[in-house]
Protein backbone atom coordinates (compact mmCIF):
# COMPACT_ATOMS: atom_id res chain seq x y z
CA UNK A 1 0.00 0.00 0.00
CA UNK A 2 1.43 3.36 -0.94
CA UNK A 3 1.90 5.94 1.74
CA UNK A 4 0.23 9.17 0.68
CA UNK A 5 1.74 11.13 3.54
CA UNK A 6 5.31 10.94 2.44
CA UNK A 7 7.69 12.10 5.10
CA UNK A 8 11.37 12.61 5.62
CA UNK A 9 13.22 11.04 8.53
CA UNK A 10 15.40 13.50 10.40
CA UNK A 11 18.34 11.87 12.14
CA UNK A 12 20.60 14.14 14.22
CA UNK A 13 23.78 12.70 15.68
CA UNK A 14 23.20 14.25 19.09
CA UNK A 15 26.85 13.84 20.03
CA UNK A 16 27.48 14.86 23.60
CA UNK A 17 31.10 15.96 23.50
CA UNK A 18 30.94 19.20 21.54
CA UNK A 19 28.50 22.03 20.88
CA UNK A 20 28.16 20.89 17.26
CA UNK A 21 26.32 17.78 18.42
CA UNK A 22 23.91 19.96 20.33
CA UNK A 23 23.42 22.08 17.22
CA UNK A 24 22.49 18.94 15.29
CA UNK A 25 19.93 18.08 17.93
CA UNK A 26 18.49 21.58 18.02
CA UNK A 27 18.26 21.71 14.23
CA UNK A 28 16.34 18.44 14.33
CA UNK A 29 13.83 19.98 16.71
CA UNK A 30 13.65 23.13 14.59
CA UNK A 31 12.67 21.01 11.62
CA UNK A 32 10.33 18.56 13.28
CA UNK A 33 8.59 20.92 15.66
CA UNK A 34 8.69 24.31 13.97
CA UNK A 35 9.50 24.34 10.27
CA UNK A 36 8.14 21.11 8.77
CA UNK A 37 6.21 19.28 11.48
CA UNK A 38 3.87 17.61 9.00
CA UNK A 39 6.45 16.14 6.68
CA UNK A 40 9.25 15.13 9.00
CA UNK A 41 9.77 12.49 11.62
CA UNK A 42 12.50 12.67 14.22
CA UNK A 43 14.43 9.45 14.71
CA UNK A 44 16.59 8.91 17.79
CA UNK A 45 19.93 7.58 16.64
CA UNK A 46 20.36 5.35 19.68
CA UNK A 47 17.12 3.54 18.90
CA UNK A 48 18.02 3.17 15.29
CA UNK A 49 21.34 1.60 15.95
CA UNK A 50 20.09 -0.75 18.60
CA UNK A 51 17.80 -2.20 15.97
CA UNK A 52 14.54 -0.83 17.28
CA UNK A 53 12.00 -2.01 14.75
CA UNK A 54 9.97 1.20 14.64
CA UNK A 55 13.05 3.31 14.01
CA UNK A 56 14.33 0.95 11.33
CA UNK A 57 10.98 0.93 9.60
CA UNK A 58 10.94 4.70 9.55
CA UNK A 59 14.25 4.99 7.73
CA UNK A 60 13.37 2.09 5.47
CA UNK A 61 10.12 3.75 4.52
CA UNK A 62 11.19 7.38 4.21
CA UNK A 63 14.29 9.09 2.85
CA UNK A 64 16.51 10.40 5.61
CA UNK A 65 18.38 13.59 6.24
CA UNK A 66 21.31 13.00 8.57
CA UNK A 67 22.65 15.93 10.57
CA UNK A 68 26.10 15.26 11.96
CA UNK A 69 28.15 17.22 14.42
CA UNK A 70 31.57 15.94 13.39
CA UNK A 71 33.37 14.47 10.43
CA UNK A 72 32.79 10.92 11.60
CA UNK A 73 29.22 11.29 10.35
CA UNK A 74 27.73 8.75 12.74
CA UNK A 75 24.13 9.57 11.85
CA UNK A 76 24.63 9.09 8.12
CA UNK A 77 26.55 5.88 8.70
CA UNK A 78 23.88 4.48 10.95
CA UNK A 79 21.05 5.23 8.55
CA UNK A 80 22.85 3.35 5.81
CA UNK A 81 23.74 0.45 8.07
CA UNK A 82 20.09 0.22 9.01
CA UNK A 83 19.06 -0.16 5.39
CA UNK A 84 17.91 3.40 4.92
CA UNK A 85 18.63 5.93 2.20
CA UNK A 86 20.42 9.14 3.07
CA UNK A 87 18.91 11.80 0.85
CA UNK A 88 21.12 14.50 2.30
CA UNK A 89 24.08 14.52 4.65
CA UNK A 90 24.49 17.74 6.55
CA UNK A 91 27.64 18.49 8.51
CA UNK A 92 27.20 21.18 11.13
CA UNK A 93 30.82 22.19 10.63
CA UNK A 94 30.20 22.91 6.96
CA UNK A 95 27.28 25.14 7.79
CA UNK A 96 29.36 26.89 10.42
CA UNK A 97 32.11 27.53 7.87
CA UNK A 98 29.62 29.55 5.88
CA UNK A 99 28.36 31.38 8.95
CA UNK A 100 31.46 32.11 10.97
CA UNK A 101 29.64 34.76 12.93
CA UNK A 102 27.52 32.04 14.53
CA UNK A 103 30.01 30.23 16.73
CA UNK A 104 28.20 27.68 18.86
CA UNK A 105 29.20 27.43 22.49
CA UNK A 106 27.74 25.39 25.30
CA UNK A 107 26.75 21.74 25.18
CA UNK A 108 24.03 21.48 27.78
CA UNK A 109 22.68 24.85 26.73
CA UNK A 110 23.62 26.46 23.47
CA UNK A 111 24.42 30.15 23.28
CA UNK A 112 22.31 32.36 21.04
CA UNK A 113 24.74 31.99 18.16
CA UNK A 114 24.48 28.22 18.41
CA UNK A 115 20.70 28.39 18.38
CA UNK A 116 20.83 30.66 15.35
CA UNK A 117 23.25 28.32 13.60
CA UNK A 118 20.83 25.45 14.20
CA UNK A 119 18.00 27.50 12.73
CA UNK A 120 20.06 28.47 9.69
CA UNK A 121 20.97 24.83 9.12
CA UNK A 122 17.36 23.77 9.48
CA UNK A 123 16.14 26.42 7.07
CA UNK A 124 18.69 25.33 4.50
CA UNK A 125 17.46 21.77 4.80
CA UNK A 126 13.81 22.64 4.25
CA UNK A 127 14.41 22.98 0.52
CA UNK A 128 15.42 19.32 0.36
CA UNK A 129 12.52 18.29 2.52
CA UNK A 130 10.06 20.07 0.23
CA UNK A 131 11.63 18.32 -2.72
CA UNK A 132 11.34 14.90 -1.10
CA UNK A 133 7.94 15.48 0.45
CA UNK A 134 6.38 18.10 -1.80
CA UNK A 135 4.32 20.79 -0.14
CA UNK A 136 1.17 19.84 -2.03
CA UNK A 137 1.06 16.54 -0.15
CA UNK A 138 0.76 18.55 3.04
CA UNK A 139 -2.29 20.45 1.90
CA UNK A 140 -5.52 19.43 3.48
CA UNK A 141 -3.93 18.09 6.62
CA UNK A 142 -5.11 21.02 8.62
CA UNK A 143 -1.64 21.98 9.64
CA UNK A 144 -1.57 19.79 12.71
CA UNK A 145 1.54 17.98 13.78
CA UNK A 146 1.86 14.76 11.91
Amino acid at each position, binding site marked *: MSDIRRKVAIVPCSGIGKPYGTVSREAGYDLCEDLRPDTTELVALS*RLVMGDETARQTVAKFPAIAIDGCKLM*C*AAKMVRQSGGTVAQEVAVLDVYRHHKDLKPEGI*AELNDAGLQLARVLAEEVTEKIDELAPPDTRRGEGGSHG
Partner: protein
Amino acid sequence: MDSLPKVKVGIVACSGEELPEGTVSRLAALRVLHELRPHETVTLCLPLFLAGGESERAFARVHPTITVDGCDLRCAARATEMYSATPAASIVVNDLVAEGGLGKPEGRRRLNEAGRQAVDATAAHVAALVDELLNRTPGAATSGEQGSGK
Protein backbone atom coordinates in the same frame (compact mmCIF):
# COMPACT_ATOMS: atom_id res chain seq x y z
CA MET B 1 50.22 11.72 41.61
CA ASP B 2 48.62 9.92 44.52
CA SER B 3 45.90 12.54 44.70
CA LEU B 4 44.84 11.86 41.14
CA PRO B 5 42.24 9.25 40.51
CA LYS B 6 43.75 6.31 38.68
CA VAL B 7 40.52 5.39 37.03
CA LYS B 8 37.94 7.61 35.45
CA VAL B 9 34.36 6.63 35.12
CA GLY B 10 32.76 6.80 31.70
CA ILE B 11 29.21 8.06 31.52
CA VAL B 12 27.13 6.96 28.57
CA ALA B 13 23.81 8.76 28.16
CA CYS B 14 21.23 7.64 25.63
CA SER B 15 20.42 11.27 24.70
CA GLY B 16 17.26 10.00 23.02
CA GLU B 17 15.83 12.89 21.05
CA GLU B 18 12.30 11.58 20.95
CA LEU B 19 11.55 11.67 24.66
CA PRO B 20 11.96 14.22 27.45
CA GLU B 21 13.63 11.49 29.48
CA GLY B 22 16.33 11.31 26.81
CA THR B 23 17.00 14.98 27.35
CA VAL B 24 17.12 14.33 31.09
CA SER B 25 19.74 11.62 30.56
CA ARG B 26 21.86 13.95 28.47
CA LEU B 27 21.67 16.93 30.80
CA ALA B 28 22.31 14.78 33.87
CA ALA B 29 25.43 13.30 32.29
CA LEU B 30 26.67 16.77 31.41
CA ARG B 31 25.91 18.04 34.91
CA VAL B 32 28.09 15.30 36.40
CA LEU B 33 30.86 15.94 33.89
CA HIS B 34 30.91 19.70 34.13
CA GLU B 35 29.87 20.38 37.70
CA LEU B 36 29.62 17.45 40.08
CA ARG B 37 32.57 15.20 39.24
CA PRO B 38 34.60 16.97 36.56
CA HIS B 39 37.88 15.32 37.48
CA GLU B 40 36.56 11.81 37.88
CA THR B 41 34.40 11.36 34.81
CA VAL B 42 34.34 11.50 31.05
CA THR B 43 31.33 11.24 28.80
CA LEU B 44 31.31 8.73 26.02
CA CYS B 45 29.54 9.75 22.88
CA LEU B 46 26.90 7.11 22.27
CA PRO B 47 26.58 7.68 18.52
CA LEU B 48 30.31 7.40 18.09
CA PHE B 49 30.40 4.47 20.45
CA LEU B 50 27.89 2.71 18.25
CA ALA B 51 29.32 3.80 14.94
CA GLY B 52 32.64 2.21 15.59
CA GLY B 53 34.59 4.68 17.65
CA GLU B 54 37.40 2.41 18.76
CA SER B 55 38.73 4.80 21.40
CA GLU B 56 35.31 4.95 23.05
CA ARG B 57 34.96 1.19 22.98
CA ALA B 58 38.47 0.66 24.30
CA PHE B 59 37.88 3.11 27.12
CA ALA B 60 34.74 1.33 28.17
CA ARG B 61 36.50 -2.00 28.14
CA VAL B 62 39.06 -0.96 30.72
CA HIS B 63 37.24 1.70 32.74
CA PRO B 64 33.99 1.37 34.64
CA THR B 65 30.99 2.89 32.95
CA ILE B 66 27.65 4.18 34.13
CA THR B 67 24.87 4.18 31.58
CA VAL B 68 21.99 6.62 31.82
CA ASP B 69 18.95 5.68 29.79
CA GLY B 70 15.74 7.57 29.35
CA CYS B 71 13.44 4.63 28.87
CA ASP B 72 13.15 0.90 29.21
CA LEU B 73 14.66 0.29 25.79
CA ARG B 74 17.97 0.90 27.58
CA CYS B 75 19.87 1.65 24.39
CA ALA B 76 22.93 3.00 26.20
CA ALA B 77 23.22 0.01 28.52
CA ARG B 78 22.67 -2.51 25.77
CA ALA B 79 25.07 -0.78 23.41
CA THR B 80 27.78 -0.58 26.04
CA GLU B 81 27.40 -4.25 26.82
CA MET B 82 27.20 -5.25 23.18
CA TYR B 83 30.17 -3.27 21.95
CA SER B 84 32.41 -3.08 24.96
CA ALA B 85 31.79 -4.39 28.46
CA THR B 86 29.02 -4.75 30.97
CA PRO B 87 28.33 -1.37 32.58
CA ALA B 88 29.31 -1.09 36.22
CA ALA B 89 25.95 0.55 36.87
CA SER B 90 22.88 1.30 34.82
CA ILE B 91 20.23 3.91 35.48
CA VAL B 92 16.87 4.38 33.82
CA VAL B 93 15.44 7.87 34.26
CA ASN B 94 11.87 6.61 34.25
CA ASP B 95 12.66 4.40 37.23
CA LEU B 96 14.32 7.19 39.17
CA VAL B 97 11.37 9.45 38.53
CA ALA B 98 8.96 6.82 39.77
CA GLU B 99 11.05 5.91 42.80
CA GLY B 100 11.50 9.55 43.75
CA GLY B 101 7.84 10.39 43.30
CA LEU B 102 8.78 13.12 40.85
CA GLY B 103 6.47 14.61 38.26
CA LYS B 104 6.59 13.53 34.67
CA PRO B 105 9.27 15.26 32.63
CA GLU B 106 7.83 17.11 29.66
CA GLY B 107 9.40 19.11 26.88
CA ARG B 108 12.13 17.21 25.11
CA ARG B 109 13.56 20.47 23.85
CA ARG B 110 13.09 22.60 26.95
CA LEU B 111 12.36 20.61 30.08
CA ASN B 112 9.58 21.58 32.44
CA GLU B 113 10.16 21.91 36.18
CA ALA B 114 9.62 18.19 36.74
CA GLY B 115 12.18 17.48 34.05
CA ARG B 116 14.69 19.77 35.68
CA GLN B 117 14.09 18.03 38.99
CA ALA B 118 14.68 14.72 37.26
CA VAL B 119 18.00 16.06 35.98
CA ASP B 120 18.97 17.03 39.54
CA ALA B 121 18.01 13.63 40.91
CA THR B 122 19.65 11.67 38.11
CA ALA B 123 22.87 13.66 38.28
CA ALA B 124 23.07 13.27 42.04
CA HIS B 125 22.53 9.54 41.72
CA VAL B 126 25.21 9.21 39.07
CA ALA B 127 27.66 11.25 41.16
CA ALA B 128 27.07 8.95 44.11
CA LEU B 129 27.68 5.95 41.90
CA VAL B 130 30.90 7.50 40.64
CA ASP B 131 32.13 7.88 44.21
CA GLU B 132 31.15 4.35 44.99
CA LEU B 133 32.89 2.95 41.96
CA LEU B 134 36.09 4.87 42.47
CA ASN B 135 36.29 3.89 46.11
CA ARG B 136 35.67 0.29 45.27
CA THR B 137 37.94 0.08 42.27
CA PRO B 138 41.06 2.10 42.96
CA GLY B 139 43.40 1.82 40.01
CA ALA B 140 41.77 -1.20 38.57
CA ALA B 141 39.31 -1.79 35.81
CA THR B 142 36.33 -3.80 36.84
CA SER B 143 33.50 -4.74 34.65
CA GLY B 144 30.57 -6.98 35.12
CA GLU B 145 29.82 -5.67 38.57
CA GLN B 146 26.30 -4.45 38.88
CA GLY B 147 25.87 -1.13 40.58
CA SER B 148 23.06 -0.03 42.75
CA GLY B 149 21.23 1.88 40.07
CA LYS B 150 18.43 -0.17 38.61
